[in-house]
C-alpha cells in the first residue's frame, strides 16, 4: 500500500472549487487573441493531468514563473530589467510594440513570495478583484462560468486540488492522510478532526458523500462537475472522518475524477425533498445567495450586478490569506475595467492585447498604478474544418493543408494580437511536456496553397468567374464555404476578413456568419457547419484531448465528445488508448508526441496561436503566480498574494 502523508505546505492547501470540476474535456472558448470575456462554459473545465505535468522537460523548459508553492519566484522573462529601452511613442502601432522592452511587464516585485517578507506583510488590506459577469448563484457544485468559479474558490475548500504546474495534490487543510490501494482503484482519505463550516457545524465525510450524491443526481444541473465525477464508481463514508473514493478503472488520470466541490450537507439536505435540484425554492435560493462555505473567506454581502464582498475567516484552520477583505466588482466591459483600474477601483483584471500593447504604456495613467503580467497559457485558437463528409472540401488533407498555407497567421499575430500570442505548433503548447519539437510550421505561402488545390482537383476556370470549381458527379461545384464565428470572439471577425481576402486571391470563396455563443455551440455539436473558429482551454492532462481527437468522440458529440469536425485516424485512436493506461511518464510522453505530430500533419484545424496570459495587477500586489491555465483557479493563486506594509493602501 502506497501511503502519502499530507504534505506540509507554506500557504495551506485550499482546494479550489474550480479544480473540483473534474471535467474530462477542454473548455470551449470564443476565439480571438484575447481571452476576453468568455462565454459561460457549459461543459466545464478540464482538470485532469498527470502528476508530473509541465516539469523537467529538457527540450522545452517551462517558463511559468513560480515553480510551485514556496519556491523562490523569479520573473518569467528577465526582460523587465531593461526599462531604459522602453518606447515612449504615444500611439504604438501593432508590430511596433515589443513586450520585452516594456518596463511594466513582469516586474520582479509582482512575483515576490511572501516568505521573504515575514513580519512586513500588511494583514488588513483589501483586494478588489474583477468579475466579468454577475454570478447565477454561489452554490459550489452549480457553478458553470469562470466568474462563478472565481467566487467559489475563495468560499469553499475541498479534498484535492492542483498547483500552478497542474500537479494534482492533496488539500492538507482538510486531509490528514491519504492512501491509494496498490491496484490504484481506491483512495482512502482521512479528514482532519475538528473541521467546521463557516456556521460552526462540523465538516465530515458525510458532507463529501452528500456532495458526490448531489453531483450525480440527475435532477441537479451541474454538467461541469459531473463529467469527471461520473467516472467514479462510488464515494463512501467509512466513518465520520474517513471517506473512500472508488474508481471504475485504474488509470494514471483517475485522480482527477475526484475533484468535485464539497457543499454543506446540513444546509442543503433540509429542502432536498421538496426541491431536489438544490436551486429552486425560497430556501435554496436564499442559501445559494448567502453561502456557507469552509474556505479561507466568508461571505458578507452581494449587491446584484455590482459587487460581492467577503472577509477572511478568522477560524480558518489552514494558513490564512493575507488580504483581510476581498471584494469582487462586477465589470463586464474591458474598456471600463481599464478605466476602473486606472482609478484604483480594482486591483487586477484580464487585459486585452490591445490594452496591453497600446493603452498601458509608460505615458498612460496605467503606469502610475499598475504592472502587467505576461505568461504562457496553454490554450489554442483554431479554425476547425468539418471532415465528416458533409461537404466536398475538407475531407481531403491537401485542401486542409492548402487552407493553412493561405492563412496569414504571422500577419494576424502582428496586426490583431500585437505579437502577444505564440504561433501554434499543433494541439500542445510549446512549453508543455507533450510538445513535439519535430513539428515544422506550415508557412504562409499562397503559391503552395494554389498548387495543392490544383492537385486536389479544385481548378480555377479562367473562362468562368475565377472561383475554383471541381466536377463532382458531373456537376461543377464551387469552392464556397461558410465560417462560423462566435459573437463573443474578440478578433474573429478581423481574422476572418484577412483570411477571406487571401482565399479570394486564390479563388476560394469564404463567407462568414456571426453567431451567438449558445447557438454556435449547438450548431457545432450537431456538426452543422463547414468551418468554425473558437478556442480550447487546456486540460491538466493530455488525456483530456481524447474528447477532441478520438474518433469515438464524434458520435458522442454534445455529451462528452468534442470531435466536432469528425477527425478520424486509427493510429491516433490507438495511441490515445495507450496513453490513458500508461503509468510511465517517458512512455506517455512519446505517445502524446506522436499524436501531436500525426495531427499536425493532417491539419484537421488551422492551428493558429496560443494566447498569452495578459493581466494587470496593482503595483503594491506581490506573490502572484501564473499557471498555464491563467492567474486564478489553481492552488494557491490569490491566497498567496500579499502587500508590503510600506505600500499599504487601505
Amino acid at each position, binding site marked *: 500500500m502506497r501511503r502519502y502523508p499530507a504534505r506540509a505546505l507554506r500557504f495551506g492547501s485550499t482546494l479550489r472549487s474550480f479544480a473540483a470540476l473534474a471535467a474530462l474535456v477542454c473548455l470551449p472558448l470564443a476565439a480571438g487573441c484575447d481571452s476576453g470575456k468568455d462565454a459561460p462554459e457549459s461543459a466545464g473545465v478540464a482538470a485532469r493531468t498527470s502528476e508530473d505535468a509541465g516539469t523537467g522537460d529538457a527540450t522545452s523548459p517551462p517558463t511559468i514563473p513560480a515553480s510551485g508553492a514556496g519556491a523562490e519566484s523569479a520573473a518569467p522573462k528577465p526582460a523587465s530589467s531593461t526599462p531604459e529601452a522602453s518606447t515612449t511613442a504615444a500611439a504604438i502601432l501593432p508590430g511596433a510594440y515589443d513586450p520585452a522592452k516594456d518596463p511594466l511587464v513582469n516586474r520582479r516585485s509582482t512575483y515576490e513570495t511572501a516568505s521573504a517578507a515575514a513580519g512586513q506583510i500588511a494583514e488588513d488590506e483589501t483586494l478588489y478583484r474583477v468579475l466579468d459577469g454577475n454570478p447565477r448563484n454561489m452554490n459550489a457544485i452549480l457553478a458553470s462560468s469562470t466568474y462563478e468559479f472565481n467566487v467559489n474558490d475563495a468560499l469553499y475548500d475541498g479534498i484535492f486540488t492542483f498547483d500552478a504546474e497542474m500537479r494534482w495534490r492533496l488539500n492538507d487543510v482538510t486531509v490528514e492522510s491519504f492512501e491509494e490501494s496498490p491496484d490504484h482503484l481506491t483512495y482512502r482519505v482521512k479528514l482532519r478532526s475538528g473541521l467546521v463550516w463557516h456556521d460552526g457545524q462540523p465538516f465530515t465525510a458525510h458532507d463529501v458523500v452528500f456532495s458526490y450524491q448531489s453531483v450525480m443526481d440527475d435532477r441537479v444541473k451541474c454538467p461541469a462537475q459531473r463529467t469527471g465525477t461520473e467516472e467514479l464508481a462510488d464515494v463512501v463514508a467509512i466513518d465520520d472522518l474517513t471517506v473512500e473514493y472508488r474508481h471504475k478503472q485504474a488509470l494514471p488520470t483517475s485522480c482527477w475524477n475526484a475533484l468535485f466541490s464539497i457543499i454543506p450537507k446540513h444546509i442543503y439536505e433540509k429542502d432536498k425533498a421538496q426541491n431536489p435540484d438544490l436551486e429552486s425554492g425560497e430556501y435554496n435560493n436564499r442559501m445559494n445567495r448567502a453561502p456557507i462555505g469552509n474556505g479561507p473567506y466568508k461571505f458578507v454581502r452581494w449587491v446584484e450586478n455590482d459587487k460581492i464582498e467577503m472577509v477572511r475567516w478568522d477560524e480558518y484552520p489552514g494558513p490564512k490569506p493575507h488580504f483581510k477583505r476581498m471584494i469582487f466588482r462586477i465589470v463586464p466591459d474591458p474598456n471600463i475595467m*481599464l478605466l476602473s483600474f486606472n482609478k484604483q477601483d480594482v486591483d487586477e483584471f484580464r487585459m486585452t492585447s490591445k490594452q496591453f500593447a497600446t493603452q498601458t504604456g509608460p505615458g498612460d495613467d496605467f503606469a502610475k498604478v499598475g504592472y502587467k503580467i505576461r505568461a504562457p497559457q496553454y490554450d489554442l485558437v483554431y479554425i476547425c474544418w468539418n471532415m465528416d463528409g458533409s461537404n466536398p472540401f475538407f475531407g481531403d488533407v491537401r485542401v486542409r493543408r492548402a487552407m493553412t498555407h493561405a492563412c496569414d497567421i504571422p500577419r494576424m499575430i502582428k*496586426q490583431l494580437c500585437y505579437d502577444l500570442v505564440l504561433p501554434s505548433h499543433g494541439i500542445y503548447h510549446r512549453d508543455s511536456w507533450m510538445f513535439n519539437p519535430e513539428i515544422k510550421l506550415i508557412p504562409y505561402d499562397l503559391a503552395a496553397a494554389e498548387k495543392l488545390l490544383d492537385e486536389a482537383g479544385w481548378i480555377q476556370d479562367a473562362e468562368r468567374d475565377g472561383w475554383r470549381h471541381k466536377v463532382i458527379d458531373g456537376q461543377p461545384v464551387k469552392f464556397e464555404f461558410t465560417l462560423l464565428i462566435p459573437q463573443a470572439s474578440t478578433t474573429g471577425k478581423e481574422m476572418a476578413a484577412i483570411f477571406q481576402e487571401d482565399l479570394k486571391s486564390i479563388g476560394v470563396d469564404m*463567407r462568414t*456568419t*456571426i453567431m*451567438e455563443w449558445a447557438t454556435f455551440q449547438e450548431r457545432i455539436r450537431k456538426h452543422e457547419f463547414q468551418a468554425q473558429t473558437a478556442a480550447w482551454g487546456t486540460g491538466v492532462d493530455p488525456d483530456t484531448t481524447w474528447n477532441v481527437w478520438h474518433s469515438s468522440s464524434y458520435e458522442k458529440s454534445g455529451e462528452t465528445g468534442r470531435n466536432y469536425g469528425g477527425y478520424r485516424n486509427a493510429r491516433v485512436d490507438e495511441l490515445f488508448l495507450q496513453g490513458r493506461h500508461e503509468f510511465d511518464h517517458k512512455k506517455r510522453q512519446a505517445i502524446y508526441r506522436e499524436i501531436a505530430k500525426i495531427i499536425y500533419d493532417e491539419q484537421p484545424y488551422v492551428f493558429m496561436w496560443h494566447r498569452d496570459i495578459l493581466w494587470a495587477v496593482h503595483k503594491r500586489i506581490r506573490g502572484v503566480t501564473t499557471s498555464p491555465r491563467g492567474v486564478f483557479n489553481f492552488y494557491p493563486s490569490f491566497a498567496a498574494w500579499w502587500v508590503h506594509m510600506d505600500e499599504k493602501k487601505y
Partner: protein
Amino acid sequence: MGITGLAVTLIFISIGLLAPALANENPLVCKYDGKIYAPAIKDLLHANLPYVGKMLFPHSAPFHLVTFNFKKRMNSERGDWVLWTPVPHGELKTSEHNLAAPSRSHWLGTDEVGRDVLARMIHGARVSMMVGFISVGISTTIGLLLGALAGYFAGWVDILISRLIEVVMCFPVFFLILTILAIDPRPSIWKVMIVIGITTWTGAARYVRGEFIRLRDSEYSIAARALGARPLRIILRHLLPNALAPLFVTVTFGIAAAILLESALSYLGVGVQPPQPSWGNILQSGFANMMTATHMIYPPAIAIFLGVLSYNLVGDALRDAVDPRLART
C-alpha cells in the same frame, strides 16, 4: 428644415446607390493591355440593375476574375492608364496600415485590419438605405393591406385585424428581432429587413384603417357602391389614392426608425454580417477601439444621426403639408 432634410436624404440615397462607383478597389475606367475597361461602372450596374449589367458587360476578361488584381498587373510602359474612383479603396480590401489616423490616402483613416473607413462608410450607406426602404416597403404593404381591409369591411374583420394589430404592437420589436436573429442559423441582412418589416407594420395599418373608416362613407365611395362597383375596385380605385398621402408620413418616419434599428442590431453583431460594412458595425469597431482610434467613432455616429434626423425632418414637413388643419391657417 424639410428641404434641408430632403437634400441630405437625397445625398445619402445617391451615395448608397452609387457606392460601387464611389469607392472601389478597381478603376472607374482604365486601359489594360490595349483594351478599355470600366470595372467599377460594371459593379455599379451589376449592383443596381443586375440583368442590365450582365447584358452590357457579359465577359470583360480579365476583370471578371475575382482573383485579378489590377493594381499589381498595371504596366504604364505598355500604355495602360487608369482613372480611379473618388475613393480608390474597396470596402473589404485590407492593408498593412491598421487603425491609421485620417490621412491623404485614407481620408477617414483605417480600421483594425487596415480597411478604408470612408469606403466602408459609403458602402454602409447603401446597406442603411436599403434596410430603410425595403423593410418599410414590407411593413407599409402589410399595413396598407390589413388597414384597408379593416377600415373598409368593418365589423368582425375590423375587430379581428384590430386585435391582431394590438397583439403585434405588444411585441417588444427590438428584442423579438434579437431573438429571431440569435437563433437563426443563417442570419443575413435580408432577414433583418424582413423581420423589421413584419413587426413594424402596425402604425401604417392603423393609419390606413382610420383613413378608410373616414372615406368609406364619403359621397364618392357611396356613389361607386351605388353604381355596383366591387369592394376591390372601390378600395383600389377610389379609397386608396385618397388615403395614400398621409401614409408617406409614416413611411419616412419608418425609414428613419429602420435605419436606427439596423444600426443598433449591427452594433450588437446580429445585423449585417461582417465583413460587409454597415454604419452600426463600423461604430461597434470604433467603440472597441475608442481609447486608441477615435477617428472610427465619429463618421458612423454622425452619419446615423444625420440619416435619421433628415428622414424625420422630411416626415415632419410632409405631415405639415398634408395636415388640412395646418394648411388652413
